[in-house]
């Protein structure tokens, strides 16, 4: 049996002293795509920030294992360099820092960690150009400050572009579809699908079936009241779309 990529065991978490997650169990094996749905405020983003190690989110009970190892004590950057990536629901602007400078530093930080040679500016640009095309991101965004003044859709494209550049082992996509027009949704989904392989695992958080029409999940989970209340296959999402969360509980 292979070791799961990600394993949440009875995870309880609070933010600012308020308990949000109350016993989440989840296993993501290499190669699997899991969709997580659930009402606003259910704790979906909390879950993704907990996995990536945001300092505001406290694990109060249970365990988070990544490739079989407990990562509770790892810093966010260590987790990132170990291959955990999150596409932010609300990407952050960093004024004055160009996207290319930022991302090249990020890519090289991970390469150093893996003992690979760093990419120089030319190599980086070459790879970046190809990947930007794949996710339909306009070329000039590379030279603008990180997310500064980007439209909502451009920000989301930039998240997936960064994922393509960083090639993570585990990707958590938090509402990557929100703010995207139909064409962008398709392009981005194709970009994500192109990254699906036997080793990589993904957790896709969304409110809408339309994303899951493109990125077809292996499993779907409903998170409500701080717990996973229902799990199923790709069909579960369609049920939600038809009858809402109320109908499920």
């Amino acid at each position, binding site marked *: 049996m292979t070791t799961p990529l990600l394993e949440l065991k009875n995870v309880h978490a609070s*933010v*600012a002293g308020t308990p949000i997650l109350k016993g989440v169990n989840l296993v993501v094996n290499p190669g699997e795509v899991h969709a997580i749905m659930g009402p*606003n*405020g259910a704790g979906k*983003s909390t879950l993704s*920030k907990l996995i*990536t190690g*945001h*300092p*505001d989110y406290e694990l109060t009970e249970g365990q988070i294992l990544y490739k079989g190892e407990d990562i509770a004590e790892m*810093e*966010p*950057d260590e987790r*990132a*360099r170990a291959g955990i*990536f*999150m596409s*932010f*629901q*609300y*990407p*952050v*602007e*960093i*004024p*004055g*820092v160009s996207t290319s*400078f*930022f*991302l090249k*530093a*990020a890519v090289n*930080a*991970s390469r150093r*960690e893996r003992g690979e040679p760093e990419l120089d500016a030319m190599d980086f640009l070459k790879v970046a150009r190809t990947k930007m095309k794949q996710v339909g991101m306009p070329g000039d965004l590379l030279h603008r*400050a990180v997310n500064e003044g980007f439209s909502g859709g451009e920000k989301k494209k930039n998240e997936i572009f*960064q994922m393509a550049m*960083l090639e993570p082992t585990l990707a958590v996509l938090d*509402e990557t579809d*929100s703010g995207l027009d139909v064409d962008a949704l398709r392009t981005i989904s194709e970009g994500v699908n192109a990254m699906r392989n036997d080793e990589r695992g993904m957790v896709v958080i969304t*409110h809408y079936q339309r994303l899951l029409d493109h990125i077809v999940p292996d499993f779907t989970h409903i998170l409500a009241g701080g717990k996973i209340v229902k799990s199923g296959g790709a069909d579960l999402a369609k049920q939600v779309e038809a009858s809402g969360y109320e109908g499920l509980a």
Partner: protein
Amino acid sequence: MSSQPDVSSRPSSGQAEVDEILDQHDEYKYGFVTDMEQDVLPPGLDESVIRFISAKKDEPEWLLEWRLKAFAAWQKMEEPNWQFVTYADIDYQAISYFAAPKKKLESIDEVDPEILETFEKLGIPLHERAALAGVAVDAVFDSVSVATTFKDKLHDLGIIFCSISEAVREHPELVRQYLGTVVPVTDNYFAALNSAVFTDGSFVYIPKGVKCPMELSTYFRINAANTGQFERTLIIADESSYVSYLEGCTAPVRKENQLHAAVVELVAHTDAKIKYSTVQNWYPGDKDGNGGIYNFVTKRGVCEGDRSHISWTQVETGSAVTWKYPSCVLKGENSVGEFYSVALTNNHQQADTGTKMVHLGKGTTSTIVSKGISAGKGQQTYRGLVSIGPKAHNARNHTQCDSLLLGKECGAHTFPYVDVRNASAVLEHEASTSKISEDQLFYAMQRGLSEEDAVSMIVNGFCKEVFKELPMEFAVEARKLLEVSLEGAVG
């Protein structure tokens, strides 16, 4: 669709981490002392010291008189205390006012290898790298200008770039015409002191219509213990000329405080432009606030002619106490003054800095961009004056002051003064104070950047507008310097 705002921007445990990292201190990278025989005058200041300095430098009578007049004025003046800094009293009798390497130097080849090594350690190789970088370096080592490079090339264009002592000898008429015209001897306490005892500094003259083809650069470094450094810089850009001048400073680690009281005067004639960039990295003192340089500097430029242009760019990361206001007097019609500043204070550093833009002529414009970064227990003050004279019709000023705080114990203060005597003036002022954002930090770290790299990147982004005003290789250096200075702040 989700409507929840992102909820992680409150101060929280991440801030504690930043504070914790701020506690770690990095050694001052340039803190070595050159072991070299020096001519040092015993501490103390009276007329005989001034006569000694003047005689040592073979100065003409008029200059000695000028110095003595300044000294007489200084004795009647009071040390200022209005600035937002506190420091131990300076004992002016405990300072030595002259230190020079013993050997007389004729050319760069004669420069003491040890001095060259010092410059090497500072990362300023005088020979090759200067040549490669296209930088002419006039290096001031303590009080005597040690080496001047590129002189011949500049000479062909009629450009004069030499130490001020040499200028006094070789071009006395020019020096006499301009010295003290921008910063009068009685301007302020430290300017008067400087006028009395200045030992060296740089002199630049760009003739009519000449665009200086390379950046002119001076590195200052205080070496001998207990010597104050009082350099004097005078730059004159004649009609339609252009010059970009770079000044970098470092000083070795010492327990005692050292005084640095420089005066810089710039004169821009009709259609001339002077760009003056400073990267200041004097020893800031240790983590507990012991030692470090007192940097009390008077810098002023006068836009004498119509459409003349003076631009100050400064990156100030060093010194225990900084007190300086590079200023522009905009006399000529449609003349332009600019001030771009990044100041960083960490540990116990204090800085009270800013600018004065004095609009006298019609259609004069000025721009002020000040970026202050405080970390540790650093205290920082922006103090600026924009004054619009009665004849300055249609003058314009844009001021932008942004402060970034790293940690809880530091502070940022802003004092913008405005004095408008002409109703047609248009003044804009923007100010902001922000903490380094948790969200930005987390975002960068989620991409795999270490906390230290993330902070340095965010801070550099914050300074971008100023760095882009620096000549290319200095921008790179400034960025590195900020990183080094932040290492003391961030791990």
